[in-house]
């Protein structure tokens, strides 16, 4: 069983389109995250949700809108895609709190905007 699964794994789309990436975790964690990893491999947090509530919203264009229908799901919707949005997007989950806040990652979604 996959602990954190995100779909699709690859996404190629044209500029201006709207797309969604889905994420589900079956670990019983209360916190979920979206990260963006660019071509230089920097891992930057975009959003963090705890028990379906947004707790971190880094400086991300408002074209990006996360939605958490329940604790096990955190989807990412992107409007009006731009070339600079091309990157690998990772969903992750963890228990919140404590020094042992281990993040479990999905396999990533490679988004290419053409």
């Amino acid at each position, binding site marked *: 069983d996959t602990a*954190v699964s995100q779909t699709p794994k690859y996404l190629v789309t044209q500029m201006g389109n709207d797309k969604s990436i889905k994420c589900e975790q079956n670990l019983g964690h209360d916190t979920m995250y979206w990260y963006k990893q660019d071509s*230089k*491999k*920097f*891992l*930057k*947090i975009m959003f*963090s949700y705890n028990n379906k509530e947004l707790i*971190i919203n880094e400086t991300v264009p408002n074209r990006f809108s996360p939605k958490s229908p329940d604790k096990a799901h955190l989807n990412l919707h992107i409007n009006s895609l731009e070339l600079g949005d091309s990157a690998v997007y*990772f969903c*992750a989950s*963890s228990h*919140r*709190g*404590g*020094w*042992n*806040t*281990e*993040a479990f*990652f*999905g*396999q*990533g979604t490679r988004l290419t905007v053409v």
Partner: protein
Amino acid sequence: TQLLEQSPQFLSIQEGENLTVYCNSSSVFSSLQWYRQEPGEGPVLLVTVVTGGEVKKLKRLTFQFGDARKDSSLHITAAQTGDTGLYLCAGVDSNYQLIWGAGTKLIIKP
């Protein structure tokens, strides 16, 4: 803004050599984690160090947390081709948020 700086950013060595990767910050962390990321996959936790001065060993990998809990190092002895990957450090801050380093891309040549 808390930052974790990793060095070197890129390292390519021959199989059998030793190497050390560093993770430095001006901030104190509750703990520090090391992750390894293989191509096409998400990062996977290798180890968490908690106490200042702590040393943990995972086979040929040795992890150390600085006395002041601001820095850490990863030393690999007799590197193997299977060690190839992206190594990321992440500090857990006082709000239990993960602060990530940029990563060290390691290539071990046969």
